[in-house]
């Protein structure tokens, strides 16, 4: 894997099928011409059978004016277990040009929680490559709130049987923010479960993108592959582009995908109001519930509550400004 996830001299453009909704070059502006910093790398390596009881907490800080070259590498050998919290913050305009490489050996278990609160002027591109061996488990959750433009590009390869992996995400965007999650899930071995569950709330003129593809190879019989993207639009100017895809070459599989985009339904709003809740209270309860159903996938209680609170504050501010 190269040191740089994306090469500034060879940036993807909307002409590339995968990038048609996301114009990175335009969003980068002058940052394109800023020479990259030296590689900042975090390597986390757990040897065979190492069970980490305490979560590890890492933070990537964005620095004004920089083109940062970030690398995260996680290797869990056979049977190792880890909960990793990855935080993103920063000030001013910067480009986090990041690559993430995750390798999970047989029976390894990783809980990966990503809390992305980059600055409003920043760009983040994260090219993620994950490989998993038999019986491995991955529960990943990402809260995407920051950045002028973010692109989360995940390529997963399930290499052994009985893998259980779920990718969950909540994206909350306002103003002119742009958030793109693109996933390629490759099932190459039988009896694996993959579950993608993403919910997005867009306010103002924000734009969201969700492209998810489940590719089931011929050998991957008895695959369970699911994908769901639900989006709530809080403003008529917000826009969501979704492209769910299934490509299946095995005949004995259970796969589904679904995508919805819309406003809050009137029926539950009226039901709640008929039970005494004010319109504002009913709306808040419903958007909170919309988000909570994904946040509930985070098993660590403290993190679950932290994420719920961060999302709750965002929602409260967004609903208030609509009144």
């Amino acid at each position, binding site marked *: 894997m190269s040191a740089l996830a994306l090469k500034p001299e060879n940036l993807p453009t909307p002409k590339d099928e995968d990038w048609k909704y996301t114009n990175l070059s335009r969003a980068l502006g002058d940052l394109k011409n800023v020479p990259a910093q030296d590689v900042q790398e975090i390597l986390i390596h757990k040897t065979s059978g190492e069970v980490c009881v305490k979560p590890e907490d890492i933070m990537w800080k964005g620095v004004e004016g920089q083109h940062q070259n970030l690398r995260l590498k996680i290797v869990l050998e056979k049977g190792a277990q880890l909960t990793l919290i990855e935080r993103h913050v920063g000030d001013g305009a910067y480009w986090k040009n990041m690559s993430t490489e995750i390798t999970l050996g047989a029976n390894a278990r990783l809980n990966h929680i990503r809390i992305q609160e980059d600055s409003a002027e920043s760009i983040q591109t994260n090219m993620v490559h994950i490989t998993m061996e038999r019986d491995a488990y991955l529960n990943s959750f990402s809260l995407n709130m920051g950045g002028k433009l973010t692109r989360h590009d995940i390529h997963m390869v399930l290499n052994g049987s009985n893998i259980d992996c779920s990718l969950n995400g909540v994206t909350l965007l306002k103003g002119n923010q742009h958030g793109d999650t693109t996933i390629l899930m490759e099932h190459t071995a039988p009896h694996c479960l993959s579950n993608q569950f993403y919910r997005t709330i867009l306010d103002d003129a924000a734009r969201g993108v969700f492209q998810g593809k489940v590719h089931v190879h011929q050998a991957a019989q008895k695959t369970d592959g699911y994908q769901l993207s639900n989006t709530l639009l809080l403003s008529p100017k917000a826009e969501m582009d979704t492209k769910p895809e299934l490509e299946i070459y095995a005949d004995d599989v259970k796969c589904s995908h679904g995508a919805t985009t819309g406003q809050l339904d*009137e*029926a*539950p709003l*009226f*039901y*709640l*109001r*008929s*039970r*005494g*809740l*004010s*319109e504002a*209270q009913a709306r808040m*309860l*419903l958007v*909170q*519930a*919309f988000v*909570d*159903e994904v946040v509930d996938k985070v098993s660590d209680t403290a993190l679950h509550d932290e994420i719920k609170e961060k999302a709750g504050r965002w929602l409260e501010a967004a609903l208030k400004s609509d009144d």
Partner: protein
Amino acid sequence: MIEIKDLHASIETDEGEAKEIIKGLNLSIPAGEVHAIMGPNGAGKSTLAYILAGRDDYDVTGGMATLDGQDLLDLAPEERAAAGLFLAFQYPVEIPGVNMSMFLKTSINAIRKQRGEDELDALGMLKLIKAKTKELGIADDMMKRAVNVGFSGGEKKRNEVLQMAMLEPKFCILDETDSGLDIDALKIVAEGVNRLRAENRSFLVITHYQRLLDYIKPDVVHIMADGKIIKSGGPELALELEEKGYAGFIGKAA
């Protein structure tokens, strides 16, 4: 208690035309009485219930409706709830991600707040929920489930009566609360309603079947067809209806 005079209401159809559904309806229910409305499908019974509860899909084009002298039609749905109106929905709405105990707590406190009362504390809430669920034969674990999500037909209807019992309204509308219930569930629901009968509380029970009225004895039975009350009488009217069917009555009125 409740006075409805010459109520007219219409809905905008998909073609953009106004379709009149309630066509000059009059109804008066004194405090403490139970009135039943029976009528064929499409008569406008649910529409009447929704209009009283404040759903805004409908245009009220004429007439009035008051609860204890207070004009209902000007109030927001939540204000009507605080004023003491409760609708047990024909089709209770699923609310994914909101569990029952959270929902009940929010609802009770929202109403108490509007009425200028103190919020119920956690212990008080727990006790209230325990007492009311027990009366209605509702399992404790239902309180952890999302509101109406995956509930059976019977569970949904019981849940409506549970909310009614907890919110202690003045005026209760039950829209086909009996449909989809087996006889045992029907008895439990009817007992729940009968327990709430009081001098200062009135009921409007919408049903298709005489069966429910064996358990919830009405003071007055109204027959509704084509957006109007076409005949009112005592409990014997329901039996007569059972015998003759709606056709006999609708024919007579025309």
